[in-house]
């Protein structure tokens, strides 16, 4: 098996004049967990559908395991477990019916499907039309994972899942990663991507703003820091001299600032004074996007004049 599982070259999808993705260059290595991060309408779903051969590229190409995702889509899908963004299932079919249906295509996976249903505590005897949204999502996840494929592609996998089921899903995906599976998933939830992924790709307006290893991203991640001093603000507090500190705002004995990079110098500095409270919040997804777009030189002002991707 090739080391590069997914490779796209100048991959472009246009819906009339609307850009789905444009000139996308993406590589995902074998055994990697790759998080595809972006706001709604950025082109995440379009990219995943192009990889699954559900959409025909307008230009460029997408290879999965060295196979053309559009022309060799049947061979590709033998190796991929796919979770769509919206779990659309056959309403009149039961959970068991769905598992047998998918297993019949692949000649295996039925037993694994039932095992996963047990772990996710999903009742399979009922017809899907009686399922809640969360139950439908669980069943769709089971259908994507039951084949034990070497590549798993998931579009916003934790949609509609409660926190306990989210944790279970993370555990299952970790097991699959340990078994050597490659995982590509999309999300607009930064903590989820940080938790799961080895590497992240950030997309907006159909363009890949950049890819980054999670540990590198953490190292230069923006944090919002608030320090409340006990009593008056200390005189001669030289916060602006610290590396990575910007946006300092003072209000009485309270200081708010943005910090990029190592937090230890800041902690050491404020620890010299009496501190009433010290809080750190992670930068918002928007802040992370802005960071990436500034680096990539992507226009961040409003939506694309060509419209948002579906």
């Amino acid at each position, binding site marked *: 098996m090739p080391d590069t599982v997914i490779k796209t070259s100048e991959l472009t999808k246009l819906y009339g004049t609307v850009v789905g993705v444009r000139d996308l260059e993406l590589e995902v290595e074998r055994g990697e967990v790759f998080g595809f991060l972006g706001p709604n309408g950025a082109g995440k779903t379009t990219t995943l*559908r192009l990889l*699954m*051969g*559900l*959409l*025909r590229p307008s230009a460029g190409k997408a290879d999965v395991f060295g196979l053309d995702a559009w022309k060799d*889509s*049947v*061979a590709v*899908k*033998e190796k*991929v477990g*796919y979770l*769509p963004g*919206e779990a*659309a*299932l*056959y*309403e*009149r079919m039961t959970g068991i019916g769905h598992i047998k*249906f*998918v297993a*019949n*295509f*692949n000649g295996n996976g039925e037993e694994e499907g039932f095992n996963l249903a047990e772990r996710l505590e999903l009742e399979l005897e009922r017809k899907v039309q009686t399922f809640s949204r969360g139950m439908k999502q669980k069943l*769709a996840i089971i*259908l994507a994972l039951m084949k034990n494929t070497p590549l798993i592609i998931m579009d916003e996998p934790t949609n509609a899942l409660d926190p306990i089921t989210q944790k279970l899903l993370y555990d299952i995906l970790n097991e699959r990663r340990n078994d050597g599976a490659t995982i590509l998933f999309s999300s607009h939830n930064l903590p989820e991507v940080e938790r799961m992924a080895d590497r992240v790709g950030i997309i907006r307006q159909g363009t890949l703003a950049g890819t980054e290893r999670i540990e590198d991203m953490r190292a230069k991640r923006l944090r919002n820091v608030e320090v409340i001093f006990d009593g008056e603000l200390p005189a001669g507090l030289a916060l602006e001299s610290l590396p990575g500190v910007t946006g300092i705002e003072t209000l009485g004995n309270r200081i708010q600032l943005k910090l990029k990079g190592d937090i230890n110098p800041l902690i050491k500095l404020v620890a010299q004074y009496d501190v009433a409270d010290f809080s750190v919040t992670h930068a918002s997804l928007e802040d992370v996007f802005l960071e990436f777009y500034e680096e990539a030189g992507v226009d961040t002002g409003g939506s694309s004049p060509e419209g948002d991707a*579906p």
Partner: protein
Amino acid sequence: MSRTVFNKIVSERWRGTLVYALGILGYLLMIVAVYPTFKKTMTAKSQLLKDYPKAVLQFFGVKSINAASFNNYITIELLGLIWIVIMAAFVIAWTRAMISGEIHDGTMELLLSQPVARWQVLTSEGTGLLVGIVSLAVVTAVGSMALGAAFGAKVSYSGFAVFLPLGIALGLAMAGYSLLLSALVNDPRRAVMASAGLTLLFYLIHFGGTYSKVIDKIDWFGIFHYYNPLATLDSGTVPVKSILLLLAFAVVGFGLSLWVFQRKDIK
């Protein structure tokens, strides 16, 4: 062909097909039960029919004024119009579900994320539709013969036997263009309306041909030009040319549907 897809479509639609079949049988029972009474008043009816405008008689598929014959009676009451409506409703509902409905419901994404080719999906579901059309045609032909005989009618067995391929060919021709519209139009409601509208247009062209020679010249373009149930029942010979031309509609429609579906974005 994919057996899994075929089994899925059959399990989804067998109940609906059964309802259609039972509906045809129920309607047949109702009209055939009235036939003996109708036959007694045949003279009056024949006279009445003679007074009808030719175009109205053609609208109901009547080509000769022999109201007493079972063939004529079943053509007026069922095969000339009602059966066409039933078959069109059955075929259009099925073809809607095959492409535009499944894309609209989102289940096409689930189906095509399995290792199955698009042509396999279409041929498998198309085979299911073929089974459905054959079933309804068989129920119609066998039901007409059995109930006709039970109620003392003089049944043309050979006529109903040769109606069978003609009826199947008509259903398949409808399926051809309906499937193409289902592949072309993303909104399933619009696909249904377009298919129903085209069927009505074909029928109106056929009907209008009796009034206008100009319209009559374009009647060959529509499927009903090749569907003459009374002549088929009366002659008892297979209308090979008509059947082949109806099948040509089906093959062209299916071929174009496949071409469109192979290139279609599943969104």
